[in-house]
């Protein structure tokens, strides 16, 4: 009477051992709504605008008992800059207007693009930085600076082009 096997022999394709299932689960399933993901807003005033997820509240908070995230998006996209523009004009055209918003996941369309922009100060002040007006403006300014400098490097071009619809 050998009592060696740990898990009782069961039909192989679906081993019900919890550890195995969780490891298979992790191998198979990928969370994609993470900070840095580029998303498109679907509802609200900023519908159709692109944004980047700054901070995720998976299980929600007491005020918002649903999964939501803080996004930093482009309220106004930078205009198209051409080579003949003077430096002053280029500077003017490259300006962006940024919004910060707490958005429900169902009102976002995730994309395959990411934008690894360092928005740590914006993220850390997250839930309360959106309550008072001046904190919000401060956070938006910080995000604006970061996004503008990213646009000037010419990377993530998709993010800074307006979605045509």
């Amino acid at each position: 009477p050998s009592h060696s096997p740990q898990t009782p022999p069961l039909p192989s394709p679906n081993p019900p051992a919890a550890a195995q299932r969780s490891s298979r689960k992790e191998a198979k399933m990928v969370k994609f709504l993470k900070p840095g993901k580029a998303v498109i807003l679907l509802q609200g005033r900023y519908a159709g605008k692109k944004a980047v997820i700054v901070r995720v509240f998976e299980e929600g908070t007491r005020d918002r008992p649903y999964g939501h995230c803080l996004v930093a998006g482009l309220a106004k996209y930078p205009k198209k800059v051409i080579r003949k523009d003077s430096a002053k004009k280029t500077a003017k055209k490259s300006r962006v207007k940024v919004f910060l918003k707490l958005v429900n996941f169902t009102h976002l369309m995730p994309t395959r693009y990411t934008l690894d922009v360092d928005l740590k100060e914006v993220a850390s002040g997250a839930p309360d930085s959106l309550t008072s007006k001046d904190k919000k403006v401060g956070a938006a300014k910080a995000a604006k600076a970061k996004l503008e400098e990213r646009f000037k490097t010419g990377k993530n071009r998709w993010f800074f082009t307006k979605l045509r619809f």
Partner: protein
Amino acid sequence: IQTLAQLTPPPRRHPRAEAAADAATSPRGATMVTSTKKTKKSGDNINNKLQLVMKSGKYTLGYKTVLRTLRNSKAKLVILANNCPPLRKSEIEYYAMLAKITVHHYHGNNVDLGTACGKYFRVCCLSIIDPGDSDIINATPAGQ
């Protein structure tokens, strides 16, 4: 449940399905009477597996919950009916691509899929969270 098993592949012969069925079953040589889906065998298999999932596993039916399970990566397999509107179909496929979850295109419309789930309503898309005793996840890995 016995009657459900007999009821599952409704013998609706669509010319395209017929052509596909003929192409698929001709090398077999077996005399399949009414092969409406791709091959009668695999059509049955999906239905049986779905039945087992309904009995023993966890699943959600319907577009909103399918998106929700895709978003929080709880879904293991997503099944779409063939008359799912193309925008919705591509949206679910896109989410599944991001989350690396397989999508299975069921050979039947939402009425058939609802019947296969043992429900009396139409089901356009469903997501399987926990297959229970069924091996539906392994059996359709490349089931696009």
